[in-house]
């Protein structure tokens, strides 16, 4: 059973989100990293890039496949976790610590699930 911290919010496409003072931090869930397998490459946006809720803003590559990472919000990237580029394995090792981007100037927030609803969603997909 994968870890699902109660204080975070989630998307059905397996991103986690935390909000502080209008800035949203986004990453991939434990369930997602487990399903994807060992990650070997990450593509990240740049600071200042606009992201749109429901659309891909990054991608991750495992030995099996490349998968998109979708933005839960519409806004502007204010910070990028460039450490991931050299250490994609940190997403596997510490999914809730290995954030991808922080997004500000958020104009729209897509549908987010709480931990219980996300757990039920994962149950359904398994």
């Amino acid at each position: 059973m994968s870890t699902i911290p109660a204080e975070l919010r989630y998307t059905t496409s397996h991103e986690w989100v935390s909000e502080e003072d209008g800035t949203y931090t986004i990453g991939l869930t434990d369930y997602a990293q487990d399903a994807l397998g060992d990650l070997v490459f990450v593509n990240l946006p740049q600071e200042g890039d606009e992201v749109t809720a429901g659309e891909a803003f990054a991608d991750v590559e495992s030995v099996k496949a490349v998968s998109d990472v979708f933005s839960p919000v519409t806004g502007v990237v204010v910070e990028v976790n460039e450490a991931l580029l050299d250490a994609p394995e940190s997403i596997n090792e510490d999914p809730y610590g290995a954030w991808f981007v922080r997004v500000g100037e958020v104009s729209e927030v897509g549908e987010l699930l709480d931990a219980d609803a996300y757990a039920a969603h994962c149950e359904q997909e398994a």
Partner: protein
Amino acid sequence: MKLLFERSVAGRGQTVFPQLDVPEVAFDQALLRRDMPRLPQMAEVDLGRHYTELASQTHGVNDGFYPLGSCTMKYNPRVNEQVAALPGFTDIHPLQPVETAQGCLRAMHELEAMLCEICGMDAMTLQPAAGAHGEYTGLLLIRAHHLANGDTARTKIIVPDSAHGTNPASAVMAGFTVVSVPSNAQGGVDLDALRAAVGPDTAGLMLTNPNTLGLFDPNILQICQIVHEAGGLCYYDGANLNAVMGHARPGDMGFDCVHVNLHKTFSTPHGGGGPGSGPVGCKAFLAPYLPGPRVAQDADGHLSFEQPEQSVGKVRSFYGNFLVAVRALTYILTLGREGIPEASSTAVLNANYLAHLLAEAGYDLPYGERCMHEFVIDCGPLKAKTGVSAMDVAKRLLDFGIHPPTMYFPLIVHEALMVEPTETEARETLDEFVQMMTAILEEAHTDGERLHGAPFTCPIGRPDEVTAARKPHLRYEFGE
């Protein structure tokens, strides 16, 4: 085994130069390198043995069964090689006057016409060097068509979630945004999802039919109609043409543009560098945008090259992989009008025969036992029961001298093994494969743990793919 650098012995070599018979020239010191390149120094006999040893560790279709799904690893008849080695085809230069290369132009022209007939298209280019290169070329045609109509809003390409990974990659390369549509329970395109996805921003749809599950989409006419009514064009990925050639034509299904893989369907070398060839065909309205130069024939039968006026430009130097085209032409002429459909019928028969026997043996076929030229086994239930994964089954097959099926693709089946026997395998080979797969299934149930260590007879068993990808060693590191 040792690397070339490890076999190197200082001062050893085999190069014997002829006597100098031209005046000696002194080079400017600035042009000369100061240090000798660090190349391995060895005798020709040792070099030969090194490569022979490497070759003995590979597996090709001439070594044994190669049911690699979606790759159509059929046998390549020797006559293809004989024809491609004819001096008229080899002792030529791409820049020599066309009057002196009429035979070569005719070979290209005839192959184009035959591929057009097989695909139901009006025009063809032989330039693209492989399948994904063909996809990219086809998408350039689609883009050129919309732009010529002043239709600059069509920026999206629709791709089903069962598609080859090259489809979305090619679409992005060609400047489009990708929209993924889900499959329905039968593995086909979900029509409602497609209807919801199309619109004034739709440039086109990329589709493989039969799809990567080995299923012919029964709604194909409707699918093309939905895309056309929205103003988009339909691109046919010819990866699975071996299932339908001579029976059904992409052009008749409603597709506007298509690529074929000569190295899959038309028995030219595949793997190990091929080289490949991915000719692109299109309906007449897209022909003005094709890459040039194109072979044209005048009223007297004289052949020359001409540049289409609105051409998207060259996608490769000269005329593509010409000698590969010669091999494909030989194949089509050898099989003829009767042989082409018979080849695909046999490919479909072989796949269905295998699918039926493997289902009977206890493997799970999530989309049923009826298929086209390939089918997908789901090892998910086996893994849940015994811990043995698709990877374990594939690795164990190596011990039996068989190239494993395609693994973990399509992505919509998580523990997928995708099996494509092709038409060039005899019933005895298929029966042996079933025996081996049955034996592996028994091993999984009696001693599944052991299978995690397979293969047991190969020089390399399970390379560490993750570390190789994360920390690649891309060159030899000298000791000093």
